[in-house]
């Protein structure tokens, strides 16, 4: 029993899966069977994983237990400091947690985990502290440029505040750092569309489709991109002024028409099924909308 639990926990640890309830379930099995001593050095990584998972679902008792054992073994460790900070956050005392993080950062200002937790707490506290969160995050990214997750977080904050131009700038860095990921390009396109830069959005949606190398069976990002192409191309066809903040040129009217047709075909194709008894949900709505927009 404990062996399979340990295996599952190890897989989740390696992949960074956030299956907190299951981790706690399996973790309790391991603890009850006293398998901790047998694990040797892996025991500490397991305790850290269990502590985080139990804090995630609110089992503070288990978390305290793990934390105690970890502090005993690794008194000055930065990783354990971070866990202590998260424990304070779980108590719903953001002020205390912030003080803790700031004190710890004064001692060691390069601890990435602590810095990111500080930014997360600042963001979580609401509109009052968001400017400070953004400031800290920008400073963090100035030092640790290659952190894609952090750039995405910044783009997310800006989007939430409706500052789409800044969000696009942050997403630009994401694209540079992870240029092969179609979902980030899709996000860039959708943010551009929301920002009102329709030609840029169209080009970027097309870029998602362009980068798809999976042959006849399209990737999921491509399927979403066809929606974007349909919306943007029909909009560009109907309105003659295509102002673009990024000075992107819209394709010619002929190409726009062809793109509109192509997108309609692909979307209708996605919702058509070959088997008679299974229909894609929302099929009728989609087809009606597609036909309705075709002028």
């Amino acid at each position: 029993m404990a062996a399979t639990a340990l295996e599952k926990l190890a897989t989740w640890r390696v992949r960074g899966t956030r299956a907190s309830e299951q981790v706690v379930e399996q973790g309790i099995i391991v603890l009850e069977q006293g398998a901790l001593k047998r694990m040797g050095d892996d025991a500490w990584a397991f305790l850290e994983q269990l502590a985080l998972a139990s804090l995630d679902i609110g089992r503070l008792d288990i978390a305290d237990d793990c934390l105690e054992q970890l502090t005993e073994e690794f008194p000055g460790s930065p990783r354990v400091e971070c866990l202590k900070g998260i424990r304070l956050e779980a108590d719903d005392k953001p002020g205390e947690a912030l003080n803790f993080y700031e004190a710890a950062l004064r001692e060691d200002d390069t601890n990435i985990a602590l810095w990111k937790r500080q930014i997360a707490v600042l963001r979580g506290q609401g509109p009052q502290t968001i400017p400070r969160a953004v400031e800290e995050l920008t400073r963090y990214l100035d030092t640790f440029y290659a952190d894609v997750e952090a750039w995405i977080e910044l783009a997310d904050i800006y989007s939430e505040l409706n500052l789409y131009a800044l969000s696009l700038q942050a997403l630009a860095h994401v694209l540079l750092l992870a240029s092969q990921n179609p979902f980030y390009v899709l996000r860039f396109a959708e943010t551009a569309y929301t920002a009102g830069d329709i030609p840029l959005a169209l080009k970027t949606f097309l870029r998602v489709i362009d980068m798809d190398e999976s042959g006849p069976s399209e990737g999921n990002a491509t399927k979403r991109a066809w929606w974007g192409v349909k919306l943007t191309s029909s909009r560009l066809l109907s309105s003659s002024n295509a102002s673009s903040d990024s000075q992107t040129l819209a394709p010619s009217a002929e190409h726009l028409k062809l793109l509109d047709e192509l997108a309609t075909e692909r979307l209708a194709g996605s919702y058509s099924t070959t088997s008679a008894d299974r229909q894609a949900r929302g099929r009728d709505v989609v087809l009606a909308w597609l036909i309705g927009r075709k002028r």
Partner: protein
Amino acid sequence: MSSSAASLYLDPQIRDWVLFPITLVMILVGILRHYVTILLTSPPKKLSRAAIREQRALLRSQILRATSSNSPLPPSYYKSLSASLWHAFDSGTYLKDGPPKDSDAPTTPANPLTNPDQMEGMMDGMKKQLVMMVPQMVIMGFVAIKLPFPLTLGFKSMLQRGVETQDMDVRWVSSLSWYFLNFFGLNGVYRLILGNDNAADSSKDLANSSPFAAATQQQAGPQDYNKLFKAEKDNLELAEGLYSWAGKGVELRVLQKYGKVAR
């Protein structure tokens, strides 16, 4: 005339006092080296926030330039990013001690002997070298073992180090050669005993064998970032010349891909 395999009779004392001791001692010395290295190695130096920032500043422009010929960024974004990096490098914004003042005397390249951090790094390397020298014992030219399988004459020079005779069958291995075979072959045994990341691995030693290599690695440390940044400015300009947006002409490519427009 090659002698037949049975004509050499080895004293069993050779087996007891040369063969087994060499193997046993090498295994033990390997384990000793592993633990001594662990004790001697000092933890990696902590860098301050500003130092990390300076070190990674070049990374930003390298990332930008890496994809410049088929860039995911539209022209306005690329150009503004390129320009801001260029100005930052020009004015030394990323330097950890702040932008250089013009009145400074030209900086002398940091002398590794006087820089204490560097010294530690070099000492560490040298200590590691010494530890490697521990098992270099003098080995007498005994004929140590007879291989159970025959080999061609080409192996004679490898297996009979120190006992150069023309007539002896290649199956007889000298103790010196046995030492070398052990030296290269015990990695597997070390991996079993010490786990994967052991410091007794001889394959890694050969890669860093010359003290020269260690010294040059250390000198890469306190580089003059200012000069590097200035050089990077030229690279940025070059990349901007090569720049092309991946989204250029994308509508035609997509239409062709799906057959709406003839290729």
